[in-house]
Structure formats: structure tokens, C-alpha cells
């Protein structure tokens, strides 16, 4: 006659219990909220509003002069457009950069837990378009935009 080996049974049960406990606490720690999954819906969205909605759950944005965009008025190389966003707002939680006329407007999204409200990157642009920065501060969304002209042919002038 076969019977279930008691030692194995006990060991497996205990191991499962420990795993559940660890998984449970990890789920509710604030750390996890920051290291969330890559927001696929926001990056595949074809419209600026849809991307903002997918990212922040709202599109109610108010323009703010405290957000500084540093980008060229005219890009000589559309594959390498340098952009810097400085948000002079209290408690900046996140910054998103979007290019209105790109096939998928969302370029990058950064969330902060201790770092300053600043983000810089180089991005690709399909054509002349407005670049929009969306900043989340104190649970509200603020925005600033700037037009960047893309010269096809790359002759600058």
C-alpha cells in the first residue's frame, strides 16, 4: 500500500505558506507601485489624449508656466532631437513627453520618488509637430508645449 510521505507533504505546505506571505506583503509595498509594468497601452496609443488617458487615467490638464521645455525650435536631425523638461512644481510625481504627430505620440514617461522634477532625452520625430510635456504634481496634471520644426533633407537653414 502506498501512502503520502508525511515529511514531503509538510515541507511543501510550509514552503507554499512562506511564498504566499512574501508575495502578499510585496503586493502592497509602495515600491511596487513605482516599478510597475511597462504601460503598453499608453505607448501603442495613436492619439495624444488616449496615451495620456492610459498613462494617468485622466486627460484633465491645465497649462503651466512652471514647466520649462528646452528643445530646438528647428531640428536638424529628426532622429536625434534633444529635449529637456524641468518642472518647477512641488512634489513632481511623473513627467511624460509626447510628440503630437508621431505615429505613437508617447516618447517616454518617468516617475519619481526622490529625484527632482527633471528629465532629458533624445527622441525621434516623424514630422514638424508640437512636443507636449505632461507633469503630474500633487495628483493633478499640468502641461506645456512647444513646436519643433523638422527640416526634411537635414540642411538646417
Amino acid at each position, binding site marked *: 500500500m502506498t501512502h503520502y510521505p508525511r515529511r514531503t507533504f509538510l515541507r511543501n505546505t510550509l514552503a507554499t505558506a512562506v511564498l504566499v506571505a512574501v508575495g502578499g506583503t510585496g503586493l502592497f509595498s509602495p515600491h511596487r507601485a513605482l516599478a510597475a509594468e511597462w504601460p503598453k497601452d499608453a505607448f501603442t496609443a495613436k492619439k495624444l489624449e488616449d496615451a495620456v488617458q492610459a498613462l494617468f487615467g485622466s486627460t484633465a490638464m491645465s497649462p503651466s508656466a512652471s514647466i520649462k521645455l528646452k528643445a530646438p525650435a528647428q531640428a536638424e536631425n529628426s532622429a536625434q532631437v534633444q529635449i529637456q523638461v524641468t518642472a518647477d512644481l512641488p512634489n513632481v510625481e511623473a513627467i511624460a513627453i509626447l510628440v503630437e504627430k508621431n505615429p505613437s505620440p508617447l516618447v517616454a514617461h518617468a516617475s519619481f520618488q526622490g*529625484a527632482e522634477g527633471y528629465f532629458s532625452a533624445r527622441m525621434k520625430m516623424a514630422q514638424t509637430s508640437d512636443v507636449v510635456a505632461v507633469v503630474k504634481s500633487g495628483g493633478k496634471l499640468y502641461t506645456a508645449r512647444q513646436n519643433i520644426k523638422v527640416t526634411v533633407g537635414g540642411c538646417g537653414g
Partner: protein
Amino acid sequence: MATDKQTKIRTKTQGGVTDVLVLVSHPMETGQRPDPKDKDKKVPAHYIQKMTFSLNGKEVAATDLGPAVSKDPLIGIKLKGAKPGDKIKVAWSDNKGESASEEATIS
């Protein structure tokens, strides 16, 4: 998964604010560019999706990048109150499962 791509970190502290610049040698392929050898095909997408910054083991910023970020991305953030000798760690992962991390000491 390991990677052959290089990650470089530069830091500069001025007036209590530390600039952190990260350069990764990565193709950042969008998936929309036609294959140079076969015009009916497209070069498969290959781009960094997540990049996280930690200061002395504590996560301070997490960024999500899309295919619209340029090739060999240069990403910058700013930190306040970082001291010389503090450790900054940058970790990234891309859509093909490649990942890497690099650590630097703030000077």
C-alpha cells in the same frame, strides 16, 4: 539575459544638485523601418522599455521608454542632496528580454 550593450554613467554635482546622465549603446529599433535587404519585411522592434535609477539601493526614479527614443539613448535626471561617494545604480531592460545594470560613484 546578459547583453553586449554598454551602459555608461556620468554624474556632475553643482550647487547641491547632481546631474545623472546615462548613455546606453542600443539600436532602439522601432519596428517600422523596412529591412534594407528585403523591402517587404521590416526590421523587428528592439528597444529599451524600462530604466530605473537607484541611489544607495533606494529607487529614486523609474522611466518607461518607447521606440521613439533615439538610438543610443542619452537619459538624464537630477538628484538633490546626493553626497560624494554615494552609489547610483542604473538598470534597464528591453522588449527582447535583454537587461543590464551599471553602478557609479558620485564624485
